[in-house]
């Protein structure tokens, strides 16, 4: 995939894949609180604005994440995220990242369609089901 770094926040790098028309967000910090979540969703919002899209399809790589606080999860699953993200893949590998992803989807119930994947191909195929807006 041909990805270019388009946006950055202190806890996340956002790459844009022109070919797939998807954002690849890599969470770089192990611990995420409300401040990090706010900066991250704002960064995705800036990306969406710069692309002139209504919403973007997003892969969020949470493989290096260890904790995400409740306020951060609430923000990630809330209306602002819904307004900018068409569908979201949570990319996991470790037990911790899988627990975080499952918890987020099961308890916090994000407003936009969200699924957990452990491999990129399946994630891309699933996101492709959602029309690019």
């Amino acid at each position, binding site marked *: 995939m041909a990805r270019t770094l388009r946006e950055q926040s202190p806890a996340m790098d956002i790459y844009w894949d022109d070919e797939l028309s998807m954002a690849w967000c890599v969470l770089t910090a192990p611990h995420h609180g409300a401040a990090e979540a706010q900066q991250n969703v704002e960064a995705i919002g800036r990306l969406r604005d710069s692309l002139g899209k209504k919403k973007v399809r997003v892969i969020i790589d949470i493989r290096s994440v*260890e*904790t*995400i*606080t*409740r306020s951060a*999860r609430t923000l990630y699953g809330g209306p602002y995220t819904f307004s900018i993200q068409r569908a979201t893949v949570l990319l996991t590998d*470790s*037990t*911790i990242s*899988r*627990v*975080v992803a499952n*918890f987020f989807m099961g*308890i916090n119930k994000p407003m936009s369609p969200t699924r957990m994947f452990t491999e990129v191909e399946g994630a891309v195929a699933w996101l492709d089901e959602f029309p690019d807006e």
Partner: protein
Amino acid sequence: MSNETVHARINEILAMLCELAMGNLDVRLPPPTAPPPGAEDVSTAIDGITVGLNMFAEELQATLIRKEQYEAILAELEQTQLQLLHSAKLASLGELAAGVAHELNQPLQIIGFAAEELRESLEDRGLRTLSRPLDVIDSQIHRGAGVIGRLLAFSRRDSDCALARADLNEVIEEAVAILGGQLATQDIEIRTELTPGLPPVAGRSNELLQVLTNLVINARDAVKSQPERRIELRSVADERYACLEVIDTGTGIADEDRPRVFDPFFTTKPMGKGTGLGLSISHSIVRRYGGSIEALSEGNRGTRMRVTLPIAGDDD
């Protein structure tokens, strides 16, 4: 992997689980000194469990906070409901009062006209001395008209309430002037503690005097059988509200009675001694000006009645 290594690892896991059981949800199992070849160490699974527990604990805490908030809102709603119920009772009472006043007013006027005619007739015949009993009728008609006027005032919803303003210190001083002598004859000490320069409040002086008179009369009834007979009248204010307080050394209000003291016709006085309307009418008056009236009492250590009224704005 040797038995000793496995044993040591099990001890580490047990120690970590004990920490977890004691509520330390941030505890992590240290990575193994000799990782098992080709297999994921148990530490990653346990770390996943602790992360999950941590998140559940956060959610539980948030749920408890929400529950407390809902309970506070519910309590507020119940309070509002009680106030609405009280307002509805007062509205019904107002209608009843207006009806009674109207029905009484007519015969009273007819009696007045008849008495007037009789007086003229007697005077025409030079029987002026016989008309003296008519003075008694006149004065009683005047008294009856006063009662009707107050009943109508109770039922009326004035539209110009916002324009009224009163000085609480003056109201207190007037109440002392009216009732002080009577209280002195009953050996009741009355004290005042007035905050100087009190800003005017929303309300009409005569109506607030009626409120204060009701409160002082109740206080008088509460203290007169007590060894210590004292009533204190106070005024205080902050930036938005001014309060007057009537504090007595009486028997206090029983806990079970306190929610009902502003209900129409509720009284703890002996039969024939109280109508149970004083506090109800006072409550109605104070509410009309955007204020509140509270009955603060601690068992049998006396009662503190507090009337809070908004300070009149420049437009009032």
